[in-house]
């Protein structure tokens, strides 16, 4: 018993059907095995809030939540995510769980061109759901894989720090 079908070797660019739950909705799409998750989200599913920057794991623009953990959508193929639950910046925005982070980024000019912002927010969301009161050092550490070419980071750290404090004053995390 091998479970391996000889046929798959012959048509490498044949599409395969994958299913995931994206932002709470079940979706199915046809992808070529070599298509990355970020390309699938942006092209097939038209969720262009997830950005593609370096496409090699260095910049953090493509971060999404996969089965509850933040991952680079450029560092996996969509076929690997078959069966997974994915939250993108669109889903996190719609559900309101990052509304305070978004408002604080806006208030403190923690974004300029906005290219890095979805990745920053997805990462900040994961950090604050794991650590209620991170130190500034911990915030910087968590963002160490997110490049921002505009802001110089200080305002981003300020915004996350302010939200962490506000959330714990108002009695716990969202």
């Amino acid at each position, binding site marked *: 018993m*091998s479970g391996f079908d000889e046929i798959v070797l012959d048509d490498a660019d044949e599409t395969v059907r994958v299913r995931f739950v994206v932002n709470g909705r079940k979706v199915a799409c046809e992808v070529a095995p*070599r298509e*990355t998750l970020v390309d699938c989200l942006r092209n097939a599913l038209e969720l262009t809030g997830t950005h593609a920057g370096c496409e090699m794991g260095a910049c953090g623009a493509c971060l999404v939540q996969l089965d509850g953990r*933040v991952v680079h959508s450029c560092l996996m193929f969509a076929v*690997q995510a078959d069966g997974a639950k994915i939250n993108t910046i669109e889903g996190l925005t719609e559900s309101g769980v990052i509304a305070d982070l978004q408002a604080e980024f806006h208030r403190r000019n923690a974004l300029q061109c906005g290219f890095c912002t979805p990745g920053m927010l997805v990462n900040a969301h994961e950090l604050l759901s794991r650590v209620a009161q991170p130190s500034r050092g911990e915030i910087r*550490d968590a963002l160490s894989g997110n490049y921002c070419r505009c802001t110089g980071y200080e305002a981003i750290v300020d915004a996350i720090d302010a939200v962490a404090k506000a959330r714990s004053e108002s009695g716990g995390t969202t």
Partner: protein
Amino acid sequence: MDIEETAVKARAFSYFRAATIDQALDAHARAGDDARFIAGGQSLVPALSLRLQAPRLLIDITHIDEMRGVRREGGYLRIGALTRHCEMLSEPLVAEFAPLLHAAAPFVAHPAIRNRGTFGGSVALADPASEFPAMTLALDAEIEIVGPTGRRRVKADDFFLDLFETALQPGELITAIYVPLFKADQRFAFDELARRRGDYAMVGCGIMATCAGDRINDIRISFFSVGNTPTRVKGAEATLIGSSLDAERIAAAQAALEGDLAPPDSDEVPPAMRLHLARVLLGRLLGRLGESA
């Protein structure tokens, strides 16, 4: 310009998700070994996207149960190859019985990469700048390998052969890494020097020592980012065995590094600088080891 030339996109391949080790080995053989196993993909996906590699078949091994989980087995902690870097931080058994790995884990890449990258993938890749492969040397760990010819266990000392070259043969899988359980008479230390947190280190080091009071009975010191493979510094180790960690012994161990290490030419970190950094780091770590009595 042709978009194919500029885009960061992998060449076409077929994909197979293996449910068992046998399925994975069988698929590899049937692809005429023109295949790659994919675990966390945190090194392999960039390599495919940049077209440094272009296999016919990608075999996803992340759904193989036998390669998961952390548990005690005899005098060892068995760490399944699929254990993610983030689990090295969160798993209590690792903190208790392999504290050196727990201490090294925060230095491996960034949080999102730690969420997917696997311990077995890191050891299989054997990047000389990586933390975990070097720590398997310091820990005297054993690597369990399964392939078409059967199952065997290879000591870390015999596993890392040359730049990205290991005892692993094409078509073989690492299933688990066996780490001797941390004991009451042991001490450990870990640190690295990097330009920015999360970057690959310019020099890094992990130490495991077995002590009787202040006396060092046994010590294994392993460096990374110093050459083609993770590197034990046996000259420095020899100067320390049988003595205590006083200033004079530490200086002798630092001096011995000159004979132990031959850092490669590099514009970013010239050999003399790397050797200097290695001495500084070793001095700090031995100092800490002395204090942790």
